[in-house]
């Protein structure tokens, strides 16, 4: 019995399906029960949240939590499936501290809103950037430029005349 099947045995109502993704056990879970499942998973020994991935599947958005247990030397992936128009899910920062920056990155690039996050703002792109670039419907026709403001902050604009060289 791998870790995903063990989770299915412990919480049969929260786990929708169990599978394998890139040779790692994967459990698809209901998004309402994410915090319950995450707490249970941490009790099982999965103390490290390696990375949070957001995927745009056109009709839905998937958020995948890749976990690792340093005690058992095992992997586990949790997947929640979110609505494409307004992707929202509970934040797991109360369970794994590292989720703070990982969730900010997922919010920045895919636009998933994490409820209960202490500081949900962009982490890689500057504030004011139009759109979330890893979404399939991101508008590539708008070219955006960054300039430095008076206080050293980043200013995003579609007008690059301050930055670009006149030729």
């Amino acid at each position: 019995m791998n870790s995903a099947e063990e989770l299915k045995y412990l919480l049969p109502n929260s786990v929708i399906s169990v599978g394998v993704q890139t040779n790692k056990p994967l459990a698809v879970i209901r998004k309402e029960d994410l915090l319950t499942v995450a707490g249970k998973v941490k009790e099982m020994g999965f103390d490290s949240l390696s990375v949070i991935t957001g995927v745009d599947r056109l009709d839905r958005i998937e958020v995948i939590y890749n976990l690792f247990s340093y005690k058992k030397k095992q992997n586990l992936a949790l997947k929640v499936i979110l609505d494409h128009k307004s992707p929202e899910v509970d934040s797991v920062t109360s369970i794994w501290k590292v989720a703070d920056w990982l969730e900010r990155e997922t919010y920045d690039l895919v636009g998933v809103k994490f409820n209960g996050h202490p500081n949900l703002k962009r982490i890689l792109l500057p504030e004011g950037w139009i759109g979330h670039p890893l979404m399939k419907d991101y508008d590539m026709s708008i070219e955006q430029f960054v300039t430095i403001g008076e206080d050293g902050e980043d200013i995003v604009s579609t007008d690059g005349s301050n930055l670009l060289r006149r030729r």
Partner: protein
Amino acid sequence: MDPVTIDTTKIRITKRKPETALEKLEDTGLINTLLAAKDREGFILLTTVDQAINWGRLSSLWPVTSGLACCAIEMMATSMAHHDIARFGMEVFRASPRQSDLMFVAGTVTKRMAPRVKQLYEMMAEPKWVISVGSCANTGGPYHESYCVLKGVDNIIPVDVYIPGCPPRPEAWLYGIIQLREKIKNEGYGAKWGLNK
């Protein structure tokens, strides 16, 4: 023992090794209209102002210490003992743009880094030169379709020499540096300010 016969046709007259400072200067080939006249007291050196100044500039190009991505690793390799850009008087990577003549744009120029690169260039004192290194800095390279990468650093600052490669090997760097030296050698004084042309 048989007497050794010497084929006189194979003997070449080698150039005499330069000894005086004047001969050494002529030997570099940098100042080619060098004229020297023997005066009663000493030497009088005649050359053009352009050539003397250009010789001084290209013999001690000081690059600014800045690297943006993996091309900077090759920049480190170029500056190390094996490839040794100290031969060109360039080993002094300055930590301040105020003391630098040359900027290597070594790596991917992202949209967020672009105003910083431009600011760094503007902080350098004239005369200044820019070498754009690698596909990313030249055209955007593999990130040409990306939302966050500038499509060529020449969109924001003027570039003198482009070195292709991903990343270019140190030999390519040395070739690019030699091309820049050729360019500086042919520059007229004040050409950048439009006085000569």
